[in-house]
């Protein structure tokens, strides 16, 4: 058999894994791979402006396409710059394969130029990582890495390749010739899943106040999974609330959908979680943003927890019926068990449960006071939604107030349309993620809802968007503050706005123009519609600078240290001082 160089094996492995898109940035230790990349036409490489942009773009690409995002960066600073993205991907279960160059093997450990212990640094923030020392193992490692990235709970995998291995000659093995030992891949280890499914449907059928608590696992399980979840929710007639990562699994317009729950979730969703007697958690992980105070979290409910990751069971909240497995598989079983047993929830119970929920809904927790002079951030999102809802739209966000307003006021009808950094909360995620989403969906409208603070964290990627003619739209809710930090300082730190005011922001319109994109601005509510319209209709990258009310707070809110039934709805309702002191310690 003909021998190939390590770098040729890298390219061949990627092609055989169906990869056609790579995000990266070259450097000394990956030059052989870039050379092989130059000599082929199957894989398109997108050059970012900083490695962080590459991995967030790969995340956006993966989340909007259900493919695996691939990143190629050099050793040392190239590798350390992707650490945030790797952590982001492991927290939000995004399938990523990262290829990093490494100094030649004889230099490893000598503090060589651009050397760092990449596998050591990235061990806690990858599902698995490799340092490949033998060129003959390279293809095997690649095929296993792609399998691991997607298998079970998806996540990032990193392959570190010393430069001499990229040059060395070796044999290539095709994916189908490789056997991966069983223990290295996910297998649900719970044997009596079927009994658990029967127990679960029986429990739901006997419930009086059931609620579905739906998370990002449903999205990771594929589009069919969301359809199945919708079907099961409909069969039971129970209300359904979604986590930040689960938005879109149930259509926002569906009458059974209560919207998002948690810290900035809907009043009715949180109160229903607090009062329910049976909770059906599908693909969510009882995150602290969702549960609030644990000892007061849904105190009177029996909890069913469906999760692909056994280590998520009983991690934060003790559950009654744990079912370890893939959402699609388990919900299929739940549906057939429900139908087989002819189950239904007693009408009189379900009517009084819905009556209660509808009463909470009447509070209208998303209402806000409009103003004719100043643009309210909530209004900006609402208007954006109105003008984009009938288009093929993907929304990405940065992190902060604008992210929560987007989650609250933008109504998602389909899964995979909402791309946000949930677990890690990475500012600077949104624009590169939008670039990735636009590359995966060239015809779609991709909008990054951003804040003035976050957007500056990866603003250099505007240059990438322009280079590849990616018509992404950056919709900045500009309040000249790190809004969420300011809000917490107002609520918990006596209004001492320590370092949360953004002095000397750039002129975002000129900034966009300097990148050869389009810059737009709205200062008054009456300008909003036209700016949004112009933004959407442009075929170029656009930055729309929306000047919003500087001191608007994001409500409703469960302040940290509080429980679901202690929501604060507006500035007038303040938290009592005792839980305030306790809450200060938390993040």
């Amino acid at each position, binding site marked *: 058999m003909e021998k190939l160089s390590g770098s040729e094996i890298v390219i061949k492995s990627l092609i055989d894994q169906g990869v056609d898109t790579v995000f990266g940035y070259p450097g000394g230790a990956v030059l052989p791979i870039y050379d092989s990349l130059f000599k082929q036409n199957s894989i398109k490489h997108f050059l970012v402006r900083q490695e962080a942009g590459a991995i967030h773009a790969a995340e956006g690409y993966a989340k909007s396409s259900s493919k695996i995002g691939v990143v190629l960066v050099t050793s040392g600073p190239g590798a350390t710059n992707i650490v945030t993205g790797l952590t982001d991907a492991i927290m939000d279960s995004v399938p990523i394969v990262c290829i990093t160059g490494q100094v030649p093997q004889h230099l490893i450990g000598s503090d060589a130029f651009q050397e760092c212990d990449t*596998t*050591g640094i990235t*061990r*806690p923030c990858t*599902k*698995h*990582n490799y*340092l490949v020392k033998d060129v003959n193992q390279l293809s095997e490692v690649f095929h296993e890495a792609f399998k*691991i990235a997607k298998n079970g709970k998806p996540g990032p995998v990193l392959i570190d390749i010393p430069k001499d291995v990229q040059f060395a000659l070796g044999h290539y093995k095709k994916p189908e010739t490789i056997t991966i*030992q069983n*223990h*290295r891949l996910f297998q649900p*280890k719970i044997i009596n899943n079927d009994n658990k499914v029967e127990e679960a449907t029986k429990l739901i059928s006997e419930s009086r106040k059931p609620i579905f608590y739906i998370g990002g696992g449903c999205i990771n399980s594929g589009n069919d999974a969301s359809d199945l979840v919708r079907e099961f929710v409909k069969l039971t007639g129970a209300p359904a609330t979604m986590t930040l990562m689960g938005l879109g699994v149930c259509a926002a317009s569906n009458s059974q959908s209560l919207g998002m729950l948690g810290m900035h979730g809907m009043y009715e969703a949180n109160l229903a979680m607090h009062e329910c007697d049976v909770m059906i958690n599908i693909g969510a992980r009882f995150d*602290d943003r969702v*549960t*609030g*105070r*644990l*000892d007061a979290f849904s105190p009177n409910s029996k909890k069913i927890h469906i999760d692909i*990751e*056994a*280590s998520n*069971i*009983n*991690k*934060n*909240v*003790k559950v009654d019926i744990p079912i370890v497995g893939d959402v699609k598989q388990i919900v299929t079983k739940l549906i057939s068990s429900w139908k087989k047993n002819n189950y239904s929830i007693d009408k009189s119970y379900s009517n009084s449960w819905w009556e209660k929920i509808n009463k909470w809904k009447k509070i209208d927790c998303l209402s806000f006071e409009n103003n004719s002079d100043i643009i309210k951030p909530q209004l900006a999102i609402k208007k954006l939604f109105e003008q984009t809802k009938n288009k093929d739209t993907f929304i990405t966000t940065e992190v902060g107030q604008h992210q929560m307003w987007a989650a609250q006021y933008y109504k998602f009808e389909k899964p995979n349309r909402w791309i946000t950094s949930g677990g890690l909360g990475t500012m600077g995620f949104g624009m590169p993620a939008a670039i990735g989403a636009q590359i995966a969906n060239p015809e779609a409208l991709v909008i990054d809802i951003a804040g003035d603070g976050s957007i500056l964290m990866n603003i250099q990627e505007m240059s990438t968007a322009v280079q590849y003619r990616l018509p992404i739209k950056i919709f900045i809710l500009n309040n000249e503050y790190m809004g969420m930090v300011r809000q917490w300082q107002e609520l918990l730190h006596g209004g001492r706005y320590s370092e949360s005011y953004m002095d000397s922001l750039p002129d975002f319109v000129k900034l966009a123009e300097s990148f050869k994109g389009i810059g737009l601005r709205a200062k008054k509510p009456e300008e909003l519609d036209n700016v949004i319209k112009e933004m959407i209709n442009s075929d170029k990258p656009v930055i729309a600078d929306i000047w919003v009310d500087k001191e608007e707070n994001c409500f409703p809110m469960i302040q940290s*240290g509080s429980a679901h039934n202690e929501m604060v709805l507006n500035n007038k309702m303040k938290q009592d001082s005792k839980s305030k002191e*306790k809450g200060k*310690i*938390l993040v």
Partner: protein
Amino acid sequence: MNKSVYSSQTTDKPSKRHLITVLVDNEPGVLARVVGMFSGRGYNIDSLNVAEVVTNDHLSCITIVTHGTDEVVDLIRKQLNTIVPVHSVNDFQDQESAVEAEVALVYLYLEENNKKESYKICDIYRARKIENENNTTIFEIAGTSERIDSFISDIEKICKIEIVRSGPIAISSLLRE
């Protein structure tokens, strides 16, 4: 349960000693993965022992003694299972029928007045003298950790010592098919 200030539901449960064995592929970094999981998630390691056990298949056994509530140790077990090169995880707390042993090497600072008594104690505990080129008195003692603890406490009363211990290892005593 976690240690967040969101006071968790089960913090008052008793903390127990658990001996966990982890069978792993003997590949670079595997120990760091296992140990890093403990430190990264705030679990404790009281002792640690690693050695290759099946040379042909490159399998190593990592033995860890930890302590925690049943819930915490259950999470440790599940977290270990998520590590790619991990084959299996065994918690010997669950199994009555396990045999446990540890090895200690003890250097005795012998003097004329404690020599006889020290040898007597070593004899009682069946500690074995290890010959060495420098002709110093080094004893090896094997057995349960409690037995070694008790030996140390007895011998320390009469003689200054220096000691190294392997940490316990364990194996199931059930009849194999």
